[in-house]
């Protein structure tokens, strides 16, 4: 359980990540604000609390792994990697520039700290399962965390991976579902309802938990609880708000991938600075 100081520290980190995301979207840049900001607390707790990792030794053999299967949320991961020191924070503003290492979707061959190439949806959970099986073969205890979007759950490969992970008792694999309830073109419930996802993961043989995906304490608690589960993989359904922290974008599918106007950009910078100082 997080104590008050730890919780405050993580909330401050999350605010810094949101500020970084805002800075990465300096007009006229187009970017995935919605899904990046819904993932912020999850990414924060993983990088600044839960995972064993070492920015000075990105290939450290004993590290835990994070795979951003919903690769369009790369901005949240880039911010976390920069705040951890995998690369300079000044790099962030150059995202998507021609020849620069920060791609529109994560590329392990270009960016230090990225563990897998993702962005074509539905593949990250399978890659995570492969890594988890590799560690099991070697008798190692490294854990693998995969962040999946709720829209991404429409990809059939997710369920292939879900079935296989349960069959192979991959208890070193944790899937976190960023349930922001919006896909690129609108609410999932209206576009093509994915139904009762909780029961679906349970039926596939996973241990399922549900948390407030913006409550760092709840996320940390769930991730710690996941360590106690044996013989089966864990799915944490994190209820989130797309665009969280940016009132003009909250709950709006239009900000799945968009440019901010000058006013929105200033508001984003101001609000995130206030969040950093407020804690």
């Amino acid at each position, binding site marked *: 359980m997080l104590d008050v100081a730890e919780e405050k520290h993580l909330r401050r980190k999350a605010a810094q990540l949101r500020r970084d995301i805002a800075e990465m979207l300096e007009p006229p840049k187009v970017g995935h604000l919605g899904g990046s900001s819904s993932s912020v607390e999850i990414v924060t707790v993983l990088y600044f609390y839960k995972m064993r990792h070492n920015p000075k030794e990105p290939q450290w053999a004993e590290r835990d*792994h994070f795979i951003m299967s919903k690769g369009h949320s790369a901005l949240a991961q880039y911010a976390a990697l920069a705040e951890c020191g995998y690369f300079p924070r000044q790099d962030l503003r150059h995202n998507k520039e021609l020849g620069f290492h920060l791609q529109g979707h994560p*590329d*392990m*061959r270009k960016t230090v700290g990225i*563990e*897998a*190439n*993702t*962005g*074509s949806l*539905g*593949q*990250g959970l*399978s*890659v*995570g*399962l*492969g*890594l*988890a*099986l*590799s*560690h099991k*073969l*070697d008798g190692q205890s490294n854990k*693998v965390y995969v962040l999946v979007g709720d829209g991404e759950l429409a990809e*059939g*490969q997710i369920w*292939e*991976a879900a*079935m*296989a992970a349960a*069959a*192979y008792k991959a208890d070193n694999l944790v899937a976190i579902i960023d349930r922001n309830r919006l896909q690129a073109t609108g609410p999932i419930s209206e576009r093509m309802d994915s139904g009762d996802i909780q029961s679906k993961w349970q039926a596939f043989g996973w241990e399922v938990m549900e948390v407030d995906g913006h409550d760092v304490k709840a996320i940390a608690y769930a991730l710690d609880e996941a360590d106690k589960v044996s013989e089966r993989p864990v799915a944490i359904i994190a209820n989130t708000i797309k665009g969280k922290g940016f009132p003009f974008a909250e709950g709006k599918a239009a900000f799945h991938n968009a440019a901010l106007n000058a006013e929105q950009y200033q508001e984003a910078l101001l609000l995130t600075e206030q969040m950093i100082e407020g804690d």
Partner: protein
Amino acid sequence: MTRAINPREAYGQTLVTLAEKDKRIVALDADLSKSTKGDLMEARFPERHIEMSIAEQNMVSVAVGLALGGKIPFVHSFAVFLSGRAYDQIRVGVALAKANVKLIGSSSGFSDYGDGATHQSVEDVAIMRSLPNMTVIVPADATETAKATEAIASYRGPVYLKLNRNDLPLVFPEEKEFIIGKVYQLRQGRHVTVFANGVMVSRALEAAEVLARRGIEVSVADVSTVKPLDTQAVVSLALQTGAVVTAEEHNIIGGLGSAVSEALRAEAGIRIEFVGVNDMFGQSALSYQDLLSHYHLTAEAVVQACDKVLAYSSRVVR
């Protein structure tokens, strides 16, 4: 080295031998291990053979994860399912990420003659060849298959190895080392150059015998590595005769014929003919030979193609 004349048997046995020496080697199957000979790995190292059931996309991405964990995964399925069903997983996870994954496209071409078009592949080489970072190898027989299997295990990076499920005549010299990217000239000749791979190498050699009886000397090269293509060797062998025929068990669009044409694009005065599948899908047949004959993948077709290029060539006076 194995004496089997069945390429997939040779592959399966070689993989087990390699796995005995290298603990990093693992194998994955999608409910086709009896066909792909992944079953030999399963029998010898059950914990290092991972059955992924009938889910090729997940299988390829899991292999990517295993490679990230330091394993050397050999991924088995029919060529058509691997290259088609799991294409995007190969594209993003294997090729773009330069993952050390070996993709074994088994029962390729028309070699699964009975199952028809859904199970046959006429386009796998074109698909795989168009992916950056991918190495594409089409061995001619069991000997070359075994040697190529050894070579790709020690090569670091993505590989597509195309295998035939039927017995093939042995044509690759037992004493020769297989090097990825090397073109093997199996017969010398000054009138026409045939570039072939897979089952068509033995047929090209047959054609060369037929033509030799008519005084036409045919050079036959086994271009097992379609990518990266040894452009220099291809150009030099082509220039020796000025008349080129390519022969492959694949669509004439995008395979060996295309690769050779690309290599020769700057060479003036070379006439090229393609022996291959003329942009059609396969179908069921009761024997492999019947199907190869139906689609003109025969020694006779190679002879005709040689005659055709020679008719245009000024270098042979007949």
